[in-house]
C-alpha cells in the first residue's frame, strides 16, 4: 500500500476515532459488557465496532417484527462475522426479541446465546462463526425472495478479515451475475484482524475498487456516526434495484473502551477490569 493511502486511512481513522458516542451507543455497550461479565468470555473488540451499524439497521432500515421473528415479509439480516454476536444480541434484546436478562446467561450451558450466533436465538437468521459463509447464504435468501415474489431485502454484515476468504468473492461474482438489487453487503472496516493490522496480515486494498469491479454499487460511511449511517443506508436502499450494493463502514475495533480501541489483543477477553467498567459507565460488577 502506498503512503498516500496509508495517510488517508490515518486521517479517516482519526475522524471515526473521535466520533462521540450517544446514550444509545453507551447503553448497548453496557449490555455487551454485562454479557461478557456473566459469561466470563467474549469477542469484545469485534462486537464494539459493530454496535452503531446493527443498531441503525434495526432502528431505521430493516422491516422486522420482534414479536414475530419469522414474519415472512421481514427483511433478512445475517451477521456473517459471527464473532461480533454480542452486538447483535444486545440489539435484539433491546428490541424485545428476548428478555434482556438472557444476556446474563451468555455462553452458559443451557443458554440461547452462544459464542457465535445460532438460529435457536429469536431473530438470528443463520448460524455463523466460520467466516465467509454469510454472503452465499444471503444470495440464496435474495434469490428465494425473487422466486417467491417477495420484496424482502437481505443485508449481510462481514468483517474486514473475513473478506480474505475466497468464498466471499465467489459469492460477490454470483451476486453480480444475478443482479441482486435486493442484496446489501456491509463491511465492518475496523482495520484490525485477529493477528494484527489488515494492511500487514492481508491487505485487501483497493477495497472499494474491488467491490466495484465485482459489480457492486459502493458507498462508505463513518460506522460510529448514527446520522451518517442512517443517511448512507437510506441512500443505499434507494439505489437502482438492479445491482447489489456494499457499504464500507469505517469503524474502530473496541470502540467505546479506550484501552480496547485499535488494540488487537482485545479481540477476545475473559475478564474485564473495574476501570474498563468505569469507562463504559458500568461502575461495579453486578
Amino acid at each position, binding site marked *: 500500500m502506498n503512503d498516500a493511502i496509508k495517510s488517508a486511512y490515518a486521517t479517516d481513522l482519526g475522524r471515526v476515532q473521535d466520533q462521540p458516542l450517544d446514550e444509545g451507543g453507551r447503553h448497548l455497550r453496557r449490555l455487551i459488557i454485562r454479557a461478557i461479565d456473566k459469561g466470563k468470555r467474549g469477542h469484545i473488540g469485534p462486537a464494539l465496532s459493530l454496535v452503531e451499524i446493527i443498531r441503525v439497521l434495526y432502528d431505521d432500515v430493516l422491516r422486522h417484527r420482534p414479536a414475530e421473528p419469522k414474519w415472512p415479509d421481514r427483511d433478512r439480516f445475517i451477521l456473517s462475522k459471527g464473532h461480533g454476536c454480542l452486538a447483535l444480541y444486545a440489539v435484539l434484546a433491546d428490541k424485545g426479541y428476548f428478555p434482556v436478562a438472557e444476556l446474563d446467561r451468555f455462553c452458559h450451558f443451557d443458554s440461547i446465546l452462544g459464542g457465535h450466533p445460532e438460529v435457536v436465538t429469536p431473530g438470528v437468521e*443463520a448460524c455463523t*462463526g466460520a467466516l465467509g459463509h454469510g454472503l452465499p*447464504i444471503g*444470495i*440464496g435468501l435474495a434469490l428465494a425472495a425473487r*422466486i*417467491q415474489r417477495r420484496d424482502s431485502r437481505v443485508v449481510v454484515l462481514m468483517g474486514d478479515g473475513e473478506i480474505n476468504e475466497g468464498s466471499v468473492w465467489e459469492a460477490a*461474482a*454470483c451476486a453480480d451475475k444475478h443482479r441482486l438489487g435486493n442484496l446489501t453487503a456491509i463491511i465492518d472496516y475496523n482495520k484490525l484482524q485477529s493477528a494484527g493490522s489488515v494492511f500487514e496480515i492481508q491487505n485487501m486494498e483497493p477495497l472499494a475498487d474491488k467491490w466495484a469491479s465485482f459489480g457492486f454499487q459502493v458507498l462508505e460511511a463513518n460506522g460510529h456516526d448514527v446520522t451518517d449511517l442512517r443517511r448512507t443506508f437510506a441512500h443505499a436502499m434507494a439505489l437502482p434495484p438492479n445491482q447489489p450494493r456494499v457499504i464500507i463502514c469505517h469503524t474502530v475495533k473496541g470502540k467505546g473502551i479506550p484501552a480496547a480501541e485499535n488494540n488487537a489483543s482485545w479481540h477476545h477477553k475473559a475478564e474485564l477490569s473495574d476501570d474498563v467498567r468505569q469507562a463504559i459507565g458500568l461502575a461495579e460488577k453486578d
Partner: protein
Amino acid sequence: MRKRCLDMVYALAQRDDRVVFIGSDLSPGLLGEMKKAYPQRYFMEGVAEANIIGVAAGMAMEGLVPYVNTIATFITRRCYEQVALDLCLHDLPVRLIGNGGGYVYAPLGPTHQAIEDLAIMRALPNMTVTAVCDAEEMTRLMNASLDWPHPIYIRLAKGGDPIVSRPDKGFAIGKAIDMSEDAGNADALLVATGVATTAALEASKRLAEDGVRCRVLHVHTVKPLDSHAIVAAAREVRLVVTVEEHSVIGGLGSAVLEALADAGEAMPRVRRLGIGDEFAKHYGNQQKLMDVWGINAQGIAGAVTDGLARARQ
C-alpha cells in the same frame, strides 16, 4: 442413473414449485427443458462450490428444495465446511447429487475419484447418505427425497448399470432391502451398497451353484443405517461380508461393524471388501480399478469361501 436422477429433478419440479436445480458448470444444455419451463428455478452457476452450497442453504431456509449437482469429489471435499455448517447444522432439505461415486472417473485420476465421500458425509450430523444400485431405484429414491426433511447426499454410479432392483421390494429411505429369493438358512450375509450390490448378487448366484447359500442385504441408505435389519440378519449367519466401491475407512463396512458392535451381542466373523487406504495408482477403467481390491463377483465369492472356511476352524 445420472440421466434418470436429473430427469427426476425436472419431474419433481413439474410436480412441486419448491424444487430448484443448481448445477456447477455442467454439460451444455443439461436439463434444457427444465431451464425453458422454469427459468427462475434453474441455475447453472460457475465453478464455485463453496458459494453454491451457501446459496442452496439460503434457498432452503425459505422453504425451497434445491437439488445441487456436480462431480462427487467437488460437492463433498471442496466445500465440506459449507456442507457441514450451511446444510447440516441448519438441517436443511438440500440434495447433493454427486456424479461419479467411487472409481467411475478411473481415467481421470484421483482428483476425480470419490473414494471417501460416504465416510465424510456420514460423519456429519443430520446428513442422509444414499447410494442406490440402478436407475429404477434412483426413481424411487428421488420420489422419496422430495419431502425428506434433512440434507441428502445422493451418490451416482456410472450409468447404464444393470437393473437389479425390484419394485415389489418397496423403497424407503433408511430401510435396507433383502434382495434374496430365499432368505432362510443362509451361510453368509452379504451387505452391499450402490452398484456393489449387483456384484454381490452375482457372487451369491455363483456361490449357490457350489452349495453356499448367501443372503444379500442392499443398503441404499448408508445413513441412517438400518442397524436393526443388519443385526437381525447377522444373527442368522456365520459370516458377514460387506462390499462397497469406497475406502474401507468409514464407509458401509465401518458402519456395519459399528452396528454389530453396538448391538452388544456375540457377532459373526466380518470381512470388509472395499478400496484400500490409498489413492488409485492406475487409470484404465472403473472395473479394473475395482478388481485391484476384489470388488467384483469373483472377489466376493472368494471372500465368502475363505471366510466360511476360517469360521469352521
